[in-house]
């Protein structure tokens, strides 16, 4: 061990959804390794689904993640409906998008205000932020509540919504029932605009992602609940072609799988969505992005907080647009007749692309299932980020460098609980 060796251990990576472990080794001024250890991919759920009915994945897989259950339900429904050759009536597809908007608002507000903002403002956590800026945290909670209200109204409840089913919903509301929700969302739009103005004032360390970005693409609007796939490298493909391009590999330091896109690392999530679709943002969101200084693309992970704020505005505007144009659908769900086949479903979870695949037999029982959550797709890029952040900041003391590493991870809002629990962070300088 050389005279430049240092050893630093930090127990617990705070303010990341779920738990995992980060190990960083610096030797003689060089980053030797930066590994985010994730212990458990959603393989249990994939095994648990085998032999179940085609109607069950939305409810079962929504239990994988308490923060983004609608994403799991939607990707599951999209895949099964594709396998069965079913297509939602347009008003039902709009309602599914509305429900998903609620999840974006709720999840992004939680991340911005309670998990991410303290990093930029020099507070150890949201509790310290709340003690000095109660009004700010109250605004975040009110915004989150508006998102929860959408999920409670349309999904039946905010945690693990129960109203979504393969083919649509169990019950659809009458137009008059939307009035209180619309009022709340109109107030939320102001809060969302204030949020974007607020986060635009933060200081952002320099860091530019060089990786390919992968997100859904929709020819007419910002992608949320469905779409085809596109990359900043110019690749375009359908959900059914996802397994041909994206493969998962076991890596020695983690039981989570690392995904690659045609053999290289790539990133999904707000930066990818925005960079590939910023021209499709809703009007106020597009204006807010411009006012916040975002260009047509954003490749600085620290600025993801701004993109999330812009996406909240977009989600609120979309929710209001859908409510304004709402007519009660003729039926709450389309008929879905099971048949042997394979379906692929994608949607944009708040933290990135979520892919589901189901193979059904002739009786509609699941023969196999595959789930690729956003965090396992983003892990390799998060590790690359860490290597670059550490290399550029080796002059910092251990505590400051560790804090910066934690920030670099939080930039990506990894939902490690999708894939693992129980995190320990350790940094070794040798």
């Amino acid at each position: 061990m050389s005279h430049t060796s240092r050893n630093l251990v930090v127990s617990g990576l705070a303010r990341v959804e779920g738990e995992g472990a980060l190990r960083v080794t610096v030797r003689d001024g060089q980053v030797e390794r930066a590994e985010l250890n994730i212990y458990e991919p959603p393989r249990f759920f994939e095994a648990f689904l085998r032999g179940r009915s085609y109607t069950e994945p939305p409810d079962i897989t929504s239990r994988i993640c308490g923060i983004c259950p609608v994403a799991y339900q939607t990707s599951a429904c999209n895949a099964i409906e594709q396998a069965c050759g079913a297509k939602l009536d347009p008003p039902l597809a709009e309602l599914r998008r509305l429900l998903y908007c609620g999840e974006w608002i709720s999840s992004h507000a939680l991340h911005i205000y309670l998990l991410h903002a303290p990093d930029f403002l020099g507070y150890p956590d949201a509790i310290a932020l709340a003690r000095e800026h109660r009004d700010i945290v109250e605004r975040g909670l009110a915004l989150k509540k508006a998102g929860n209200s959408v999920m409670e109204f349309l999904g039946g409840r905010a945690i693990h919504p129960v109203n979504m089913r393969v083919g649509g919903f169990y019950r659809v509301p009458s137009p008059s029932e939307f009035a209180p929700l619309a009022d709340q969302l109109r107030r939320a739009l102001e809060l969302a605009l204030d949020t974007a103005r607020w986060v635009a004032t933060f200081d952002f360390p320099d860091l530019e992602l060089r990786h390919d970005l992968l997100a859904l693409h929709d020819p007419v609007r910002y992608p949320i609940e469905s779409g085809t796939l596109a990359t900043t490298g110019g690749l375009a493909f359908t959900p059914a072609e996802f397994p041909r391009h994206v493969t998962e590999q076991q890596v020695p330091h983690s039981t989570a799988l690392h995904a690659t896109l045609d053999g290289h690392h790539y990133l999904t999530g707000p930066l990818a969505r925005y960079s590939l679709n910023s021209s499709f943002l809703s009007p106020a969101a597009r204006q807010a992005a411009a006012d916040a200084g975002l260009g047509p693309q954003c490749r600085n992970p620290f600025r993801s907080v701004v993109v999330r704020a812009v996406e909240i505005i977009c989600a609120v505007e979309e929710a209001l647009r859908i409510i304004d144009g709402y007519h009660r659908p003729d039926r709450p769900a389309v008929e879905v007749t099971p048949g042997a086949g394979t379906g692929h479903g994608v949607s944009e979870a708040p933290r990135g692309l979520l892919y589901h695949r189901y193979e059904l037999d002739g009786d509609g029982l699941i023969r196999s299932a595959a789930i690729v959550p956003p965090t396992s797709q983003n892990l390799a890029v998060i590790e690359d980020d860490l290597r670059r952040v550490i290399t550029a900041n080796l002059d910092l003391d251990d505590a400051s460098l560790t804090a910066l590493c934690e920030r670099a991870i939080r930039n990506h809002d990894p939902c490690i609980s999708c894939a693992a629990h129980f995190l320990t962070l350790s940094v070794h300088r040798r």
Partner: protein
Amino acid sequence: MVRAQEAVPAGAVRAVVIGVGNCYRRDDGVGPAAAAEIERQHLPGVRVVISDGEPAGLLEAWAGMDLAIVVDAVRCVPATPGRMHRWPDGQLEGGWTASSHGLGVPAALALARALDRCPRRVVLFGVEAADLRPGAGLSPAVATSLPDVVAAIATELRGAKVPPGRSVRP
């Protein structure tokens, strides 16, 4: 699972029982399981909420309540699976929950204090877990202790008194 507030009889408190956890993480489901049992008792003035521990949801659930009872799995080393712990007044430092949901219950309480969104009184119940791996169903030791946990919560609710100077809505 949120049950509409029932009419509160005179002398009763407004209380919420919050079961925190994930029923697909074996013993992490003990909180929701206990809360579901309490709901079946239809106690007047008692609201039952199942939570994944997400802090903003907890603040919503317990704000304005006379009494909040939070029940969750705890990880102990060494563990005596099924053993129940009770922390009156919510006086517990971080790191106690076996769940992995964002900030955790102690941090959510601290946030509630900073925002004046605490209930008048908080009682935390923790049940030592044996098995937190993915899967449905409680371990035998935790399942065996469940009736005692439910009884302890019910006793806590029955023993709760209306705070002095507070009028109870009829």
